[in-house]
Protein backbone atom coordinates (compact mmCIF):
# COMPACT_ATOMS: atom_id res chain seq x y z
CA UNK A 1 0.00 0.00 0.00
CA UNK A 2 2.81 2.38 0.85
CA UNK A 3 4.52 1.99 -2.51
CA UNK A 4 1.20 2.50 -4.26
CA UNK A 5 0.62 5.72 -2.34
CA UNK A 6 4.12 6.95 -3.11
CA UNK A 7 3.69 6.20 -6.83
CA UNK A 8 0.33 7.99 -6.90
CA UNK A 9 1.77 11.03 -5.11
CA UNK A 10 4.73 11.10 -7.51
CA UNK A 11 2.42 10.96 -10.53
CA UNK A 12 0.24 13.73 -9.09
CA UNK A 13 3.32 15.86 -8.41
CA UNK A 14 4.65 15.37 -11.94
CA UNK A 15 1.28 16.27 -13.47
CA UNK A 16 0.96 19.32 -11.22
CA UNK A 17 4.47 20.61 -11.96
CA UNK A 18 4.12 20.11 -15.72
CA UNK A 19 0.71 21.76 -15.71
CA UNK A 20 1.90 24.75 -13.71
CA UNK A 21 4.91 25.12 -16.01
CA UNK A 22 2.67 24.95 -19.08
CA UNK A 23 0.25 27.51 -17.67
CA UNK A 24 2.97 30.01 -16.73
CA UNK A 25 4.80 29.51 -20.04
CA UNK A 26 1.62 29.86 -22.03
CA UNK A 27 0.60 32.96 -20.12
CA UNK A 28 3.78 34.67 -21.16
CA UNK A 29 3.94 33.30 -24.68
CA UNK A 30 0.42 33.15 -26.05
CA UNK A 31 -0.64 36.73 -25.69
CA UNK A 32 -3.05 38.19 -28.19
CA UNK A 33 -0.49 40.73 -29.34
CA UNK A 34 1.99 38.07 -30.41
CA UNK A 35 -0.41 35.85 -32.33
CA UNK A 36 -0.90 36.38 -36.02
CA UNK A 37 -3.74 34.15 -37.07
CA UNK A 38 -3.42 34.33 -40.85
CA UNK A 39 0.32 33.78 -40.74
CA UNK A 40 -0.11 30.69 -38.60
CA UNK A 41 -2.81 29.16 -40.76
CA UNK A 42 -0.97 29.84 -44.02
CA UNK A 43 2.38 28.72 -42.76
CA UNK A 44 1.36 25.24 -41.68
CA UNK A 45 2.13 22.60 -44.28
CA UNK A 46 -0.49 20.02 -43.47
CA UNK A 47 -3.61 21.99 -42.62
CA UNK A 48 -4.50 24.95 -44.82
CA UNK A 49 -7.54 27.17 -45.19
CA UNK A 50 -9.97 26.27 -47.92
CA UNK A 51 -12.01 29.18 -49.20
CA UNK A 52 -15.44 29.00 -47.62
CA UNK A 53 -16.11 25.54 -46.24
CA UNK A 54 -13.36 25.51 -43.64
CA UNK A 55 -12.65 22.27 -41.86
CA UNK A 56 -15.41 20.26 -43.50
CA UNK A 57 -14.03 21.00 -46.98
CA UNK A 58 -10.56 19.98 -45.84
CA UNK A 59 -11.89 16.72 -44.42
CA UNK A 60 -13.89 15.84 -47.52
CA UNK A 61 -11.49 16.95 -50.25
CA UNK A 62 -8.10 16.09 -48.81
CA UNK A 63 -9.01 12.96 -46.90
CA UNK A 64 -6.96 10.61 -49.07
CA UNK A 65 -3.93 12.90 -49.23
CA UNK A 66 -3.80 13.40 -45.49
CA UNK A 67 -4.82 10.04 -44.10
CA UNK A 68 -4.75 7.48 -46.96
CA UNK A 69 -7.81 5.82 -45.40
CA UNK A 70 -10.63 4.51 -47.56
CA UNK A 71 -13.32 5.06 -44.92
CA UNK A 72 -13.75 8.77 -44.39
CA UNK A 73 -15.67 8.32 -41.15
CA UNK A 74 -12.85 6.28 -39.63
CA UNK A 75 -10.41 8.98 -40.72
CA UNK A 76 -12.52 11.65 -38.98
CA UNK A 77 -12.99 9.61 -35.81
CA UNK A 78 -9.41 8.40 -35.34
CA UNK A 79 -7.33 11.06 -37.04
CA UNK A 80 -9.00 14.48 -37.26
CA UNK A 81 -10.93 13.94 -34.03
CA UNK A 82 -8.63 11.53 -32.22
CA UNK A 83 -8.73 13.51 -29.01
CA UNK A 84 -12.53 13.41 -29.05
CA UNK A 85 -12.50 9.63 -29.43
CA UNK A 86 -10.20 9.38 -26.44
CA UNK A 87 -12.81 11.23 -24.39
CA UNK A 88 -15.61 9.02 -25.68
CA UNK A 89 -13.82 5.82 -24.82
CA UNK A 90 -13.00 7.15 -21.36
CA UNK A 91 -16.66 8.04 -20.85
CA UNK A 92 -17.47 4.40 -21.56
CA UNK A 93 -14.80 3.30 -19.08
CA UNK A 94 -16.08 5.53 -16.30
CA UNK A 95 -19.70 4.52 -16.99
CA UNK A 96 -18.81 0.86 -16.67
CA UNK A 97 -16.80 1.52 -13.50
CA UNK A 98 -19.73 3.42 -11.97
CA UNK A 99 -22.27 0.74 -12.83
CA UNK A 100 -19.89 -1.86 -11.42
CA UNK A 101 -19.74 -0.01 -8.11
CA UNK A 102 -23.52 0.44 -7.93
CA UNK A 103 -24.48 -3.10 -8.91
CA UNK A 104 -21.93 -4.73 -6.61
CA UNK A 105 -23.14 -2.67 -3.65
CA UNK A 106 -26.79 -3.49 -4.41
CA UNK A 107 -26.04 -7.14 -4.28
CA UNK A 108 -24.25 -6.87 -0.94
CA UNK A 109 -27.11 -4.87 0.60
CA UNK A 110 -29.59 -7.47 -0.67
CA UNK A 111 -27.58 -10.20 0.98
CA UNK A 112 -27.41 -8.27 4.24
CA UNK A 113 -31.18 -7.67 4.17
CA UNK A 114 -31.91 -11.33 3.65
CA UNK A 115 -29.50 -12.22 6.44
CA UNK A 116 -31.27 -9.78 8.77
CA UNK A 117 -34.68 -11.13 7.87
CA UNK A 118 -33.63 -14.66 8.53
Amino acid at each position, binding site marked *: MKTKKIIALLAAAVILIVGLRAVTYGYNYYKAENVEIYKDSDGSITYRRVDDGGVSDIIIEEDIEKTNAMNNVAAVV*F*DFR*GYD*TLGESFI*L*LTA*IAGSFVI*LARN*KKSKKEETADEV
Partner: protein
Amino acid sequence: MKFKDGIKGRNIVVKCAADKLLPFSLVFGLYIILFGTVSPGGGFQGGVMVASGALLLYLGYGYAKTRKVLGPNVLRVNESLGAILYVLLGVVGIVFGANFARNIFFDVGSFGDLLSGGTISFMGWTVGWKVLTGVSFLLLLMFSLLAPDSSEDEEEEEI
Protein backbone atom coordinates in the same frame (compact mmCIF):
# COMPACT_ATOMS: atom_id res chain seq x y z
CA MET B 1 -41.95 -20.59 -17.13
CA LYS B 2 -38.84 -20.37 -15.02
CA PHE B 3 -35.34 -20.65 -16.39
CA LYS B 4 -33.00 -22.51 -14.10
CA ASP B 5 -29.29 -21.94 -14.34
CA GLY B 6 -28.37 -25.40 -15.60
CA ILE B 7 -28.60 -26.61 -19.16
CA LYS B 8 -31.49 -28.96 -18.45
CA GLY B 9 -33.94 -26.19 -17.63
CA ARG B 10 -33.23 -24.32 -20.86
CA ASN B 11 -35.44 -24.52 -23.83
CA ILE B 12 -33.68 -26.51 -26.53
CA VAL B 13 -34.77 -24.11 -29.26
CA VAL B 14 -33.11 -21.18 -27.53
CA LYS B 15 -29.96 -23.20 -26.95
CA CYS B 16 -29.70 -24.31 -30.57
CA ALA B 17 -30.36 -20.78 -31.80
CA ALA B 18 -27.57 -19.45 -29.57
CA ASP B 19 -25.22 -22.16 -30.81
CA LYS B 20 -25.93 -21.38 -34.44
CA LEU B 21 -25.90 -17.58 -34.20
CA LEU B 22 -22.86 -17.13 -31.95
CA PRO B 23 -20.13 -17.78 -34.57
CA PHE B 24 -21.83 -15.50 -37.10
CA SER B 25 -22.09 -12.61 -34.67
CA LEU B 26 -18.47 -13.06 -33.54
CA VAL B 27 -17.09 -13.25 -37.06
CA PHE B 28 -19.15 -10.34 -38.34
CA GLY B 29 -18.24 -8.10 -35.39
CA LEU B 30 -14.55 -8.95 -35.62
CA TYR B 31 -14.64 -8.25 -39.37
CA ILE B 32 -16.17 -4.83 -38.70
CA ILE B 33 -13.46 -4.05 -36.13
CA LEU B 34 -10.55 -5.25 -38.27
CA PHE B 35 -11.61 -3.61 -41.55
CA GLY B 36 -12.64 -0.30 -40.04
CA THR B 37 -10.39 1.77 -42.28
CA VAL B 38 -11.39 0.03 -45.51
CA SER B 39 -15.11 -0.66 -45.23
CA PRO B 40 -17.94 0.93 -43.27
CA GLY B 41 -17.75 0.29 -39.55
CA GLY B 42 -15.26 0.91 -36.81
CA GLY B 43 -14.21 0.07 -33.32
CA PHE B 44 -17.32 1.09 -31.39
CA GLN B 45 -19.87 -0.61 -33.62
CA GLY B 46 -17.92 -3.82 -34.06
CA GLY B 47 -17.13 -4.01 -30.35
CA VAL B 48 -20.80 -3.82 -29.44
CA MET B 49 -21.63 -6.46 -32.05
CA VAL B 50 -19.06 -8.86 -30.61
CA ALA B 51 -20.34 -8.13 -27.10
CA SER B 52 -23.79 -9.23 -28.24
CA GLY B 53 -22.22 -12.69 -28.38
CA ALA B 54 -22.17 -12.62 -24.58
CA LEU B 55 -25.93 -12.05 -24.65
CA LEU B 56 -26.43 -15.05 -26.91
CA LEU B 57 -24.25 -17.12 -24.59
CA TYR B 58 -26.36 -16.06 -21.62
CA LEU B 59 -29.62 -16.86 -23.44
CA GLY B 60 -28.37 -20.31 -24.28
CA TYR B 61 -26.45 -21.41 -21.22
CA GLY B 62 -27.31 -19.24 -18.22
CA TYR B 63 -25.30 -16.98 -15.95
CA ALA B 64 -22.87 -19.38 -14.30
CA LYS B 65 -21.55 -20.82 -17.55
CA THR B 66 -21.29 -17.42 -19.21
CA ARG B 67 -19.29 -16.14 -16.31
CA LYS B 68 -17.06 -19.19 -16.30
CA VAL B 69 -16.32 -18.73 -20.01
CA LEU B 70 -15.79 -14.96 -20.06
CA GLY B 71 -14.13 -14.22 -16.73
CA PRO B 72 -14.88 -10.73 -15.37
CA ASN B 73 -11.35 -10.11 -14.15
CA VAL B 74 -9.86 -10.84 -17.57
CA LEU B 75 -12.40 -8.48 -19.16
CA ARG B 76 -11.62 -5.68 -16.71
CA VAL B 77 -7.87 -5.96 -17.25
CA ASN B 78 -8.27 -6.04 -21.04
CA GLU B 79 -10.50 -2.98 -21.07
CA SER B 80 -7.99 -0.81 -19.26
CA LEU B 81 -5.25 -2.29 -21.44
CA GLY B 82 -7.08 -1.14 -24.55
CA ALA B 83 -7.45 2.37 -23.14
CA ILE B 84 -3.73 2.54 -22.31
CA LEU B 85 -2.80 1.33 -25.80
CA TYR B 86 -5.02 4.01 -27.36
CA VAL B 87 -3.29 6.72 -25.33
CA LEU B 88 0.13 5.37 -26.30
CA LEU B 89 -0.84 5.41 -30.00
CA GLY B 90 -1.98 9.01 -29.56
CA VAL B 91 1.31 9.94 -27.92
CA VAL B 92 3.17 8.69 -31.03
CA GLY B 93 2.12 11.96 -32.68
CA ILE B 94 3.68 14.00 -29.87
CA VAL B 95 6.91 11.97 -29.97
CA PHE B 96 7.41 12.87 -33.63
CA GLY B 97 6.75 16.55 -33.05
CA ALA B 98 3.09 17.05 -33.97
CA ASN B 99 -0.25 17.22 -32.20
CA PHE B 100 -1.81 14.53 -30.05
CA ALA B 101 -3.30 11.75 -32.19
CA ARG B 102 -1.78 13.18 -35.38
CA ASN B 103 -1.35 10.51 -38.02
CA ILE B 104 2.35 10.31 -38.83
CA PHE B 105 2.71 7.02 -40.73
CA PHE B 106 -0.19 7.37 -43.16
CA ASP B 107 1.99 6.53 -46.18
CA VAL B 108 2.55 2.93 -45.14
CA GLY B 109 0.70 0.96 -47.79
CA SER B 110 -1.08 1.48 -51.07
CA PHE B 111 -4.58 2.93 -51.01
CA GLY B 112 -7.13 0.37 -49.89
CA ASP B 113 -4.79 -1.91 -47.95
CA LEU B 114 -5.62 -2.96 -44.41
CA LEU B 115 -2.66 -1.03 -42.97
CA SER B 116 -2.88 1.91 -45.36
CA GLY B 117 -4.28 4.28 -42.77
CA GLY B 118 -1.21 4.31 -40.53
CA THR B 119 -2.20 4.70 -36.91
CA ILE B 120 -5.92 4.92 -37.84
CA SER B 121 -6.31 1.16 -38.15
CA PHE B 122 -4.34 0.46 -34.96
CA MET B 123 -6.43 2.99 -33.03
CA GLY B 124 -9.58 1.39 -34.40
CA TRP B 125 -8.42 -2.02 -33.22
CA THR B 126 -7.57 -0.79 -29.73
CA VAL B 127 -10.93 0.97 -29.41
CA GLY B 128 -12.68 -2.15 -30.67
CA TRP B 129 -10.85 -4.30 -28.12
CA LYS B 130 -11.75 -1.86 -25.35
CA VAL B 131 -15.43 -1.63 -26.28
CA LEU B 132 -15.68 -5.41 -26.79
CA THR B 133 -14.39 -6.21 -23.31
CA GLY B 134 -16.09 -3.26 -21.61
CA VAL B 135 -19.58 -3.85 -22.97
CA SER B 136 -19.42 -7.60 -22.36
CA PHE B 137 -18.36 -6.85 -18.79
CA LEU B 138 -21.35 -4.51 -18.46
CA LEU B 139 -23.66 -7.21 -19.82
CA LEU B 140 -22.18 -9.69 -17.36
CA LEU B 141 -22.93 -7.27 -14.51
CA MET B 142 -26.54 -7.01 -15.67
CA PHE B 143 -26.85 -10.80 -15.92
CA SER B 144 -25.65 -11.11 -12.34
CA LEU B 145 -28.79 -9.24 -11.23
CA LEU B 146 -31.01 -11.62 -13.21
CA ALA B 147 -29.31 -14.75 -11.90
CA PRO B 148 -31.26 -16.93 -9.46
CA ASP B 149 -30.17 -17.26 -5.87
CA SER B 150 -29.02 -20.85 -6.23
CA SER B 151 -25.69 -19.76 -7.66
CA GLU B 152 -24.83 -17.51 -4.75
CA ASP B 153 -22.17 -19.84 -3.43
CA GLU B 154 -19.96 -19.20 -6.43
CA GLU B 155 -20.52 -15.47 -6.42
CA GLU B 156 -19.29 -14.90 -2.92
CA GLU B 157 -15.72 -15.30 -4.04
CA GLU B 158 -15.89 -12.44 -6.53
CA ILE B 159 -17.56 -9.07 -7.22
